[in-house]
């Protein structure tokens, strides 16, 4: 195996697959990137067995062949050879020799046979979605994914694929985010997928600015062919909780408040909250809202009041400030609306105005106050 390639081209391609390389793995081979040369086409493949990525680059091929090379070492040296022409040559000892100018670097490789092969993808159905909309939906939902590995279903983003709409749902048991994308066409059987966070991160990195993206759904896996990378991911098995039943239907006390002021107030109050519980208290009346926090253990308290409009009876409700702030970040309208219902039930947070063809809402569970 022998080829030459410019450092910048190689590095750019290499950096696209290397995030899929697991930082820690029980299988040492997975810390490698597989290089496969056929003619002038070099393929780079990385996998952690859940997520696999494949990308290609044009090189000046001299001799075909394949080898797995350690991702970190190769990445590190290539990064240091800025602007140079690189000569790759695989010697009979399975060492990849990289020559650049006067430098010569030998990296021990592992036989390509030992590298896990890409999943066999037997495509079943497809759907397509505008890249921009996909990106925005993933960004606004992924933060609420659970990190509890004992409940794997909650550790991914739930995709509910229907003929006229695509729903994105995430929850960690304390918060829930749901986006319904109504600018959506799909003519297959309705589908439900739980896509792991790592796959979505990889998709986000490589989404183009414009155009449509095609998801291919296989048995328990998905594949996306993007412009310069193909991403395969296993889906999370298990049943997603019946989330619709926990979305209150009768939250008719509405609070409307400035997103910016509300956010800043909470940030200030949080400083005085207990560092473990982050508990803040909202004291809401018809024309104002007071936010306060007090740390019984460590001492100190703060409170602040702003005007707001509220159509319900006065109420006091407690929240984890960290949770609320994360919700605020997802709202890009000047004002937001919180809809309250029964005590102990979830509050619904929405932007004051929905985007076109979209329904976006977030739920937050209160803290029972003492």
């Amino acid at each position, binding site marked *: 195996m022998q080829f030459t390639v410019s450092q910048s081209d190689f590095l750019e391609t290499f950096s696209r697959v290397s995030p899929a390389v697991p930082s820690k793995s029980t299988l040492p081979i997975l810390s490698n990137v597989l290089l496969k040369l056929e003619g002038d086409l070099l393929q780079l493949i990385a996998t952690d067995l859940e997520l696999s990525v494949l990308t290609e680059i044009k090189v000046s091929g001299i001799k075909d062949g394949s080898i797995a090379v350690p991702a970190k070492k190769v990445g590190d040296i290539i990064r240091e050879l800025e602007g140079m022409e690189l000569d790759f040559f695989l010697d009979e000892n399975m060492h990849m020799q990289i020559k650049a100018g006067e430098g010569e670097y030998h990296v021990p490789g592992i036989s390509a046979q030992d590298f896990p092969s890409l999943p066999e993808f037997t495509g079943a159905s497809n759907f397509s979605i505008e890249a921009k909309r996909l990106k925005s939906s993933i960004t606004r939902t992924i933060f609420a994914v659970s990190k*509890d590995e004992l409940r794997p279903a909650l550790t991914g983003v739930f995709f509910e694929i229907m003929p006229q709409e695509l729903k994105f749902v995430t929850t960690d048991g*304390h918060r829930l985010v749901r986006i319904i994308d109504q600018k959506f066409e799909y003519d297959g059987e309705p589908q439900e997928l739980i896509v792991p966070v790592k796959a979505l991160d990889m998709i986000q990195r490589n989404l183009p600015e414009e155009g449509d993206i095609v998801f291919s759904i296989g048995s328990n896996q998905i594949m996306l062919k993007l412009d310069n990378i193909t991403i395969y991911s296993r889906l999370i098995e298990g049943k997603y909780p019946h989330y619709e039943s926990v979305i209150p239907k009768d939250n008719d006390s509405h609070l409307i408040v400035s997103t910016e002021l509300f956010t800043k107030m909470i940030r200030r109050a949080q400083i005085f909250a207990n560092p473990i519980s982050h*508990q803040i208290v909202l004291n809401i009346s018809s024309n104002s809202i007071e936010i306060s926090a007090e740390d019984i253990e*460590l*001492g100190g308290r703060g409170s602040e009041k702003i005007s707001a409009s509220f159509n319900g009876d006065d109420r006091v409700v407690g929240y984890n400030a960290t949770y609320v702030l994360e919700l605020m970040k997802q709202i890009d309208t000047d004002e937001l609306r919180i809809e309250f219902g029964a005590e*102990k039930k979830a509050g619904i947070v929405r932007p004051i105005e929905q985007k076109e063809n979209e329904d976006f809402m977030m739920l937050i*569970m209160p*803290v*029972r106050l*003492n």
Partner: protein
Amino acid sequence: MKNIEKILPTSSIRVLPEGIANRIAAGEVVERPASVAKELIENALDAEASHITLSVQKSGIDEILISDNGWGMDADDLPLAFRRHATSKISSAEDLLRITHLGFRGEALPSIASVARVEVISRREDRESGVRYSVSGGKPVGPEPVARERGTTVRVRTLFYNVPARRKFLRTPATEYAHIVKTFRQYALAYPEIQWTLIKDKNTVWNLQSTDLTGRISQLFGDGVLKDLHNVSSGSGVNLVEGIIGGTNLFKRSRGDQFLFINRRPIQNQSLHHAVVNGFGPLIHPGQVPFYVLFLRVDPEEFDVNVHPAKHEVRFRDEGGIYRMMLVATRDALGQSIRDGSAPINMNIKENEKQVHKTAGLQFPKPPKAHRVDGIRELELLFGRPAQDQTKIDTIYPDKPGKSHYMSQEKGDHSNVQMSPGSGFNRNNEAPLAGKHDPHDHLPLTSQKDVKHLEHQSLTSVDNKLELQRVNIWQLHQTYILSQVKSGLVIIDQHVAHERILFERALNAMQGRQWSGQQLLFPVEVKLDPAESAMMEEMTPYLARVGFDVEKFKDDYWLIRSFPSGIKLKNEEKLLREIIADYRMEHALKIAPEESVAASFACKAAIKAGDPLNTEEMNALIDELFQTQYPFVCPHGRPIVINLTLDEINKLFGRT
């Protein structure tokens, strides 16, 4: 025996001849060689000796020899000393109520002389030579002049030679020697400023140079114990308790290393021992005995030692008050004192001192700084340690017996356990006003000038240490938190640290403000077995106080609707099952349900070894840890914080 035979047939009531009376008294005072040693040691102490040597042959059965460098006696005193009730120490019945000497009954020498061969050599400093006087089989020999330095030597040989029954009942030499050692240690601890020598069969066992209490403890028990000693100093009114208690590392399974003194007289009192044990609260388990050397200073009018000739039993006028004082003192030492690196704040302390000095007239030795204390104070300065309120202390360790240690509403007499509110630094600034800067200096600290001086010192030292506030903090193997402090290195076990935090918060929640519960979007359904379900019904109200909203909805199916806020969301169902299982075990130990729930919850909900923590989380953990009452021991008695001093580390590397 001859006398009795003569008396009995002829008359029914007679005044006993002095020899018989002495032998009866000896039966009370002289039980075994150790009691001889005790009586003679007390005489030497009353003679204000600065070096006392105790030498025994065959565990004291063959010979007990006490030699001191005290006042000494002259030819006129000596024969009198062998007369019953001859004492230089009290002269009237009124004096009996205000006993400040150790020996006072005038029984010791005549009693001993009635059951052993006794020889005394003594010299008063103002006499030209010493004198020898001996009594053997009731017959005096001497006094005759002999050469001797100032002081007294008493040699007691063939104990119980004339009381075969007593001699027969002596235990093995090993046991008798153990009693001698115990007696020797008691007095050596009570009088660390005195040099003590113990010789066994001509071999020197101990030669203890004059030192202070901590020094004496290390002489007797080894340097190893120093790491886990905590100063005790507490009291109100005229009563005071001072000394040292050992931490959880020094727990033993058997009695023996507990030393209690009243006005420096060794005493045994089951009730006060219990007070100390109770002061450890949940840190001590049944069957464990703490190490302590405690000195009660009580107005002599407040207690009576004249209960038994051997004087080791004491009656108090206000035993309940003394009990509470001991209990509170122990708690303080374990909780607040350790963290402050000093004695608890006691606004009345100077007043106490005056009265104690006046009444007891004893000079209490100044113990040196226990070295771990400095590291800990430093630690607190580093990590900061904000306010605490009085209620917290009261609710966690109230006094009321019978009910739980934790739950009682009763405040008890805590006037001496004031904690200042305010920031950690305010606390330290206030400290010197209460003599808190150096707990060991508080006794001599009487003048306003001294106080001002110390105040100034304290402020500047706090300022210097403040610069160290931002130090690095590391996690080791996702199990321990490491941080540099000025004195060396501290290592914190993350699991037990968190367990301690949760345990105390849970206990607080049981009593006061309830722990808020984070409501769950998806209530968790748990199927319990019938036994678990029954347990659960019992636990529900207590679980609610720590933020669990659990509800039975059919048969043995339960719903968890909320979870204590601030606890990282894990598997609620698993957690609940673990808590039930743990509760069952605790419950079997007959621990109150609220405590059991708190303990089980704390243990199971705490972060585990292997949980990664970021810097912010580690800092928060440490902040909270130092808010707790007992930041150094987990609810099961394991250490939470280990302080490795630079000296210790240097030693490991062979740097000296």
